[in-house]
């Protein structure tokens, strides 16, 4: 036990019994503990989005078992349990700013907590606290969300999910289309949730630097199957020649070409610098 998320031999079929039938996931086994920071990678169409939609019952597995916090999710799951799971598993989709709809920023962020049964007052308190934590100042609370900049809209949308205080946060490419600064802000925010609140993070990404610098586990999907499920350091060692590498690993390889072999595969810039320093001390 102790697993927050437990997928056992899961298959997912799109459009079963039609000429368009498509096996999007096949034989997926995935167990996730509280507090992990997991990234999911794989090429377009490999089933990443399908996989995460199983985690809060937006879609139910065609075969196999999906269990969240001990509750099994299938087509027979009771509505009450489903709502319970949706309040525990926050889901942030690609371009979440598309889901904004309310008159004011504050209303939009309070929407989730209200739906999950918090009172109006509690919801607003949660919303205000969350908005401040994602860096939206109180002057903006009563503005229309459609008047904000792209980066601000995305932060409001993310706050709309965080305000529900989920134990698990699932994100589908949360930084696509943001500038370098906006991207860093959001990643740091997610990291903070993971470290301080022990929120479990499951993030779909195409950015290998995110995989190496932030996550402590990587799941590599290929044609709907789990091809690898290991720590990033091992992953980039094993798959050096098949995936695009993070900057630190690229540097490692370049140094190696020039005859400088570092003791370990670095995952972050800091690790890289430390390893280079060690090496240079040894040379001297």
């Amino acid at each position: 036990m102790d697993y927050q998320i437990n997928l056992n031999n899961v298959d997912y079929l799109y459009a079963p019994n039609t000429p368009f039938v498509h096996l999007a996931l096949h034989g997926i086994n995935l167990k996730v503990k509280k507090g992990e920071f997991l990234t999911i990678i794989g090429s377009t169409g490999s089933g990443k989005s399908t996989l995460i939609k199983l985690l809060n019952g937006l879609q139910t597995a065609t075969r196999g078992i999906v269990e969240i916090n001990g509750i099994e999710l299938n087509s027979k799951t009771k509505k009450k349990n489903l709502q319970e799971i949706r309040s525990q598993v926050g889901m942030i989709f690609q371009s979440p700013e598309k889901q904004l709809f309310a008159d004011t920023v504050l209303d939009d962020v309070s929407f989730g907590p209200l739906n999950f049964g918090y009172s109006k007052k509690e919801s607003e308190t949660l919303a205000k606290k969350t908005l401040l934590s994602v860096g939206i100042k109180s002057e903006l609370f009563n503005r229309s969300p459609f008047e904000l900049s792209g980066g601000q809209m995305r932060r409001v949308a993310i706050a709309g999910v965080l305000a529900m205080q989920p134990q698990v946060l699932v994100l589908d490419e949360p930084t696509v289309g943001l500038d370098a600064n906006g991207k860093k802000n959001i990643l740091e925010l997610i990291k903070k949730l993971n470290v301080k609140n022990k929120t479990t993070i499951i993030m779909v990404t195409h950015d290998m630097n995110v995989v190496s610098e932030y996550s402590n586990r990587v799941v590599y999907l290929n044609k709907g199957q789990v091809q690898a499920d290991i720590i990033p350091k091992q992953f980039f060692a094993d798959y050096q020649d098949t995936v695009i590498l993070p900057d630190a690993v690229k540097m490692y390889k370049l140094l190696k070409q020039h005859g400088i072999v570092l003791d370990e595969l670095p995952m972050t810039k800091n690790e890289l610098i430390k390893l280079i320093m060690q090496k240079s001390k040894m040379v001297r």
Partner: protein
Amino acid sequence: MNHVVFGSYLPGNSFIHRLNPALKILAVLLLITWTLFANNWLNYGLLAIFILLQLILSATSVKTVFRAIRPFLWLIMFTVLIQILFGNQGTIYWQWGPIKITSVGLEMAVLIFIRFTLIIIEATILTLTTSPNAIATGVEYLISPLKYLGVPVATISIMISIALRFIPTLVDELHTIMNAQKSRGVSFGSGGIIKRVKSICSLIIPILVSSFRHADNLADALSASGYEANATRSSYQQFHWTIFDTLCLVVVLILGILVILMRKI
């Protein structure tokens, strides 16, 4: 994805797939008219046989046809029931106040059922075998005489293809937004009236915003590539009128004459 069949296109290379889209649209409109003219077993039978022939010529399976009819089943059943209960001619089999079941009522109900089914199958064969683009081209061809009355036919055709082009995009976005709102605790179709209105707003407003954004982007892209509303333009996909198209039109017209001749007066 259970509404996948009605109105969707299944690429193929059957005899009917290869016909001119203008002919197919015209033929379907004519056949639906003939179906409305039919009023006895004989001419319905004739039309049914003709539809069977089309199913064979378009390589459409009976399963596909059944799935196309399914969404309309309740509507058909309702109409049939009304016919059965309120028809009041012929031998009376059963009566309760003003409600009675009569022989003519029953017969009418069966005929209405057949009429509905034939029309739906007819429309389904068109959309199954003709891509949205081809339908737009076909419509443009059919309404092209209107340009002599000053109707901007080419512009209308572009509008139709753009609208058709964006349906799947918007449906996709609707799904995504629906999923996002469900994840924020909305359960569509439950709760009190205020809650329901709010749920629907959380879908409609984002979709409207998104449509406007698409329209803006498309307008920019069109002007950037030098689009001019009134220019004459050629099209990449050419449809030729062949001897088979003429043949089909003749057959459909003869069928119409037969249906009218067989009418019970």
